[in-house]
């Protein structure tokens, strides 16, 4: 598929934006209102991260995988709201795995696409401000941090993510693995995430995930990661 075809989907994406469901308010005073999630736009074209990540993968990852998490997250929200409104605690709790999976999937992919950038938008440029200092403090050097991050990615069994996180209490940096679509919540805040699910690389790298884990550093948006620091 040529990249010009991918660039021309700007019109398609604009059309999708206008067709996206708007947030609705419930009229009942007892039922809680909820905001419908919508698929966030990418700040770059699908082909813009090549050769690190192919345009074909970016388009599928965004329009199929991320969109499905958005759609299913909205469904789960609706189901949980109904259960809570009906006072059905058991039903609401039974929906927790689905909430974690689809809500986590939406969160994770939103953050992920934001922390990638084409080279001409700063992708791959190492951090220079407070994040750089913090990385040096905690890992000794940027390269040592990368080595640990790649090891974390390589060690994931099955589907999951690796994140550079910040401890909410101490501010310390950490690298953590999260299974499936478990989001970074609670004790830690997400700074930078890399998707290690097979769909994130398979069409281009097949089973050679080590190559993907190496090439993706060329399109990491460290400015966004730094802006997430507290």
């Amino acid at each position: 598929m040529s990249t010009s075809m991918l660039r021309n989907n700007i019109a398609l994406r604009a059309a999708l934006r206008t067709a996206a469901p708007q947030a609705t308010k419930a009229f009942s005073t007892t039922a809680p209102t909820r905001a419908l999630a919508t698929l966030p736009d990418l700040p770059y074209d699908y082909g813009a991260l090549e050769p690190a990540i192919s345009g074909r993968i970016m388009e599928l990852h965004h329009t199929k995988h991320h969109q499905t998490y958005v759609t299913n997250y909205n469904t789960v929200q609706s189901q949980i709201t109904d259960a809570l409104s009906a006072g059905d605690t058991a039903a609401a709790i039974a929906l927790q795995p689905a909430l974690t999976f689809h809500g986590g999937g939406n969160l994770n992919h939103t953050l992920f696409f934001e922390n990638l950038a084409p080279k001409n938008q700063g992708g791959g440029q190492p951090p220079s401000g407070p994040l750089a200092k913090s990385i040096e403090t905690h890992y000794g050097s940027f390269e040592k941090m990368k080595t640990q991050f790649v090891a974390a990615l390589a060690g994931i069994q099955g589907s999951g993510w690796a994140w550079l996180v910040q401890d909410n209490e101490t501010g310390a940096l950490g690298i953590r693995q999260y299974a499936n679509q478990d989001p970074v919540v609670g004790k830690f805040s997400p700074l930078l995430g890399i998707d290690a699910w097979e769909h994130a690389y398979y069409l281009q790298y097949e089973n050679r995930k080590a190559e993907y884990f190496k090439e993706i550093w060329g399109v990491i948006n460290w400015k966004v990661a730094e802006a997430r620091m507290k």
Partner: protein
Amino acid sequence: MQFANLTLGWILSLAQSRLGVGPLVQSKLDANTSPPPTDTTAYTLPPLDYSYAALEPHFDEETMRIHHTKHHQTYITNLNAALQDTSFASLHIDDLVARLSEVPAELKGKVRNQGGGHANHSFFWKNLTPNATALAEGSPLHKGIEHAFGSFEVFQQTFEKAATSVFGSGWAWLVVQEDGELKVVTTLNQFSPLMGAGVVGNGVAGFPVIGLDVWEHAYYLKYRNVRPEYIKAYWHVVNWDFASDRYMEARSSIAHPEL
């Protein structure tokens, strides 16, 4: 605890009996033209009984090739590396995964993941065939499925739903449980029902009759994110002869089956 031991003992006896299998399975093995493995100190990649393209258009050639020569091989390579200073590799792989409790603590995780991968994929290739025929109504397995699910259609729907709803990587299985009943279960990553209740829980432990890999690498090249289409395609390549043999093997080990 006692139930867990009973289940594990039953699975172990089944796994061990595979080394000297019953007449039904033996006749199938005799028909297999591939040579027996000669290296008993390391696991080796079992050859497929069919070409990589043979399952087209349901399972594409490229996926079969990469799945077998890369993914399955990697599990075997990593497993052998983990076990190199032990003699566990002399065990049949189904035996090894049933006996995870005997593996040293520092190796257990690796053996569970890589050994599970080897066991699951070895089973999977046998579970597939280019010459799929419908499971005969009136056959013991068909009767067992009807008994457990009400009808073959309900079983298929149950299996499809389970395979669709695995959150992440894993497998969907039809297993024979300790009481002889059939059940649809799922496992995450490379867990296997053969690992026993102590590892996968009472509700999941059992002897696999059919199994479907729902890791993305099993279907992504052809089916992309549309896992349900891949699951539907699976029904065209299920080896019901092999499944029936597995069912009879499990049932013959049960003292007092309900049916």
